[in-house]
């Protein structure tokens, strides 16, 4: 490529240089080239690139934290980053975006966080084009769940479908996401600045390897049914001894339920499989027995798994949710080898989360749970929720493993702030934690609890504890609603309305509102009632009330933990 003349100069230089000289020359030339590229760019486009939008969809705060981090790094590299939460993002801006990066987590059955739902639905509409968009997606998830990072994947593929140009590939992150997220940031920043050379990332303190999910072992101290005789419900208060667990009021306990021994044994019998045989499952050697007992979801197979089963045994199976042992009975496998194929299509048991009802300050060395034994009917048969059944059966001194799922949003405010807690049924769990914590730490803020359930005489969870707190004034106000004690149904939202004037006063004095419990219909009804209280007692019209509520959300004064 060089002219003969230049080539001669180079050869002479090389011949007269030591190894160190050559290394130095190499670097020197590289630097010169990089510098020239920069110059070209500067001369070329004055307002290049450097304005990007970072949008995050967060459920428990992790995506938000990463997005903040990313924005800070971008700024350090001279890139102007606009940070926005997906629930506040103005959807029509999308068509005008040039650089758009999303940090989004995946919930439950592969869904986006509630805050990202509006955005997610919008981009699935397909009615528009995003031809000038350059994007990248960082997806957070948990490989313990089958639809790992699905929300992120969907966003990534949809943005492409709409005509966007993917400039960095989708990065899926598991629970231990710090390193992968960091690498993704670097890649994005490099792509934007078009530098081959190292992008300056402020050296974060030497690789603090996040331990990801720390697994604790707990021992059952006591397990009682809080509901009285004659109740339609069975809610267990479980006290667990566990040392040095790192949690705060508002966090949840997560555990992966094991499958019932009887069912596993039945399956082994039906398939004639050698349960001691070891298979490689996700990089570890594990016996078939342990796979079936501890790792795989076998009791309620989702339809997508039933479909795969049908294609393995080459038979038609009607769409239905069914247990593996029933499936094996009705549509048996031909031999153990075929069953091994089946094992490969089974998904991992998803962890279940339970809001913790104890407080680290008040209940040192212990964790308490409030678990409703879940029942439902499938084909006229009464079935129990796998995990809630397991927990309700735990005997004193039994051990089990769990981890803590932190909820960075659902937290107590400063000690002098007032709080209103709305927690019917098991929704009361985190509020017991809040009250116990506020009691133990001497917080001065006022506390108002709304609780509801079916019958006063048999379902008033933690009644005596609440009465004590009323007496000692830790609990300022307790409003209860028992839906089936009279002809007409009375729920927590009816009580909220009844005390509407005072409720609004509390809001005006800066109170924080927390809602915990069933997502539908309870949380929906509660929110509607909130709006109507704001309207009526705040003398506002519908839009003003909605704005007031939005402000509460934005300032972190309206928080939900619903399921």
């Amino acid at each position, binding site marked *: 490529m060089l002219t003969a003349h230049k080539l001669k100069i180079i050869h002479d230089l090389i011949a007269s240089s030591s190894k160190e000289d050559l290394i130095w020359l190499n670097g020197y030339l590289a630097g010169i080239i990089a510098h020239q590229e920069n110059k070209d760019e500067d001369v070329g486009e004055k307002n290049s690139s450097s304005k990007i939008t970072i949008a995050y969809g967060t459920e428990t705060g992790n995506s938000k934290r990463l997005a903040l981090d990313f924005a800070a790094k971008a700024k350090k590299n001279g890139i102007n980053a606009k940070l926005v939460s997906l629930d506040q993002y103005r959807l029509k801006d999308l068509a005008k975006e040039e650089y758009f990066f999303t940090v989004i987590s995946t919930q439950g059955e592969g869904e986006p966080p509630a805050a990202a739902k509006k955005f997610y639905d919008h981009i699935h509409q397909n009615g528009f084009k995003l031809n000038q968009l350059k994007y990248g997606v960082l997806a957070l998830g948990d490989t313990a769940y089958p639809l790992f990072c699905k929300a992120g994947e969907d966003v990534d593929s949809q943005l492409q479908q709409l005509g966007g140009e993917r400039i960095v590939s989708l990065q899926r992150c598991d629970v231990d996401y710090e390193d992968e997220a960091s690498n993704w940031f670097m890649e994005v920043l490099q792509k934007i600045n078009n530098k081959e050379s190292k992008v300056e990332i402020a050296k974060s303190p030497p690789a603090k390897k996040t331990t990801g999910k720390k697994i604790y072992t707990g021992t059952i101290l006591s397990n009682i049914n809080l509901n009285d005789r004659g109740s339609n419900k069975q809610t267990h208060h479980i006290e667990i001894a566990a040392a040095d667990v790192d949690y705060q009021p508002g966090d949840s306990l997560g555990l992966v339920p094991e499958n019932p021994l009887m069912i596993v044994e039945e399956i082994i019998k039906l398939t004639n499989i050698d349960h001691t045989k070891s298979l490689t499952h996700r990089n570890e050697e594990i016996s078939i027995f342990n796979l079936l007992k501890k790792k795989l979801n076998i009791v309620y197979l989702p339809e997508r798994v039933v479909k795969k089963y049908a294609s393995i045994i080459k038979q038609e199976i009607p769409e239905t949710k069914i247990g593996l042992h029933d499936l094996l009975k009705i549509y048996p496998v031909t031999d153990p080898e075929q069953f091994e194929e089946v094992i490969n299509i089974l998904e991992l048991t998803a962890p279940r989360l339970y809001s913790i009802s104890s407080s680290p300050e008040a209940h040192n060395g212990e964790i308490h749970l409030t678990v409703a034994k879940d029942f439902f009917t499938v084909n006229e048969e009464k079935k129990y929720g796998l995990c809630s059944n397991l927990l309700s059966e735990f005997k004193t001194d039994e051990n089990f493993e769990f981890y803590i799922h932190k909820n960075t949003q659902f937290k107590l405010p400063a000690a002098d702030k007032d709080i209103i807690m709305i927690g019917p049924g098991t929704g009361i769990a985190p509020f017991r934690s809040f009250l116990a914590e506020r009691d133990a730490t001497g917080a001065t803020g006022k506390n108002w609890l709304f609780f509801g359930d079916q019958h*006063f005489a048999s379902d008033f969870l*933690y009644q005596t504890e609440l009465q004590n707190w009323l007496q000692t004034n830790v609990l300022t106000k307790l409003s209860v609603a028992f839906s089936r004690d009279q002809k007409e149904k009375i729920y927590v939202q009816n009580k909220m309305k009844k005390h509407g004037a005072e409720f609004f006063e509390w809001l005006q004095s800066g109170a924080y509102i927390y809602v915990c419990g069933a997502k539908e219909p309870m949380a929906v009804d509660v929110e509607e009632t909130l709006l109507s209280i704001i309207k009526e007692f705040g003398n506002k019209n519908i839009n003003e009330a909605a704005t007031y509520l939005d402000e509460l959300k934005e300032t972190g004064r309206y928080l939900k933990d619903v399921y």
Partner: protein
Amino acid sequence: MSEKNNLSAIEKVKQASDGLRGTINEGLLDEVTGAISEDDQALLKFHGMYQQDDRDRREERAEKKLERLYSFMIRLRLPGGFLTPEQWIATHHIAR
């Protein structure tokens, strides 16, 4: 007539009770407990009623963090032991 300072506790309660009303009505409206206050319990007896709880259930209820299972008993004065059908039905509704 006894001197004021010779009154027993219950007499003091009666005196302060506004014709034996006390805070019985308010107490019945308290949704957090099925009981009424101590003083009201004493006044209630003058109305021929009595607050009680299911003693056999006490221990279990306490374990379940539930208060005692309160109920009220009403003493009926039945001259000759007669009750009209209407009175019977009324009593049934009260008991429910």
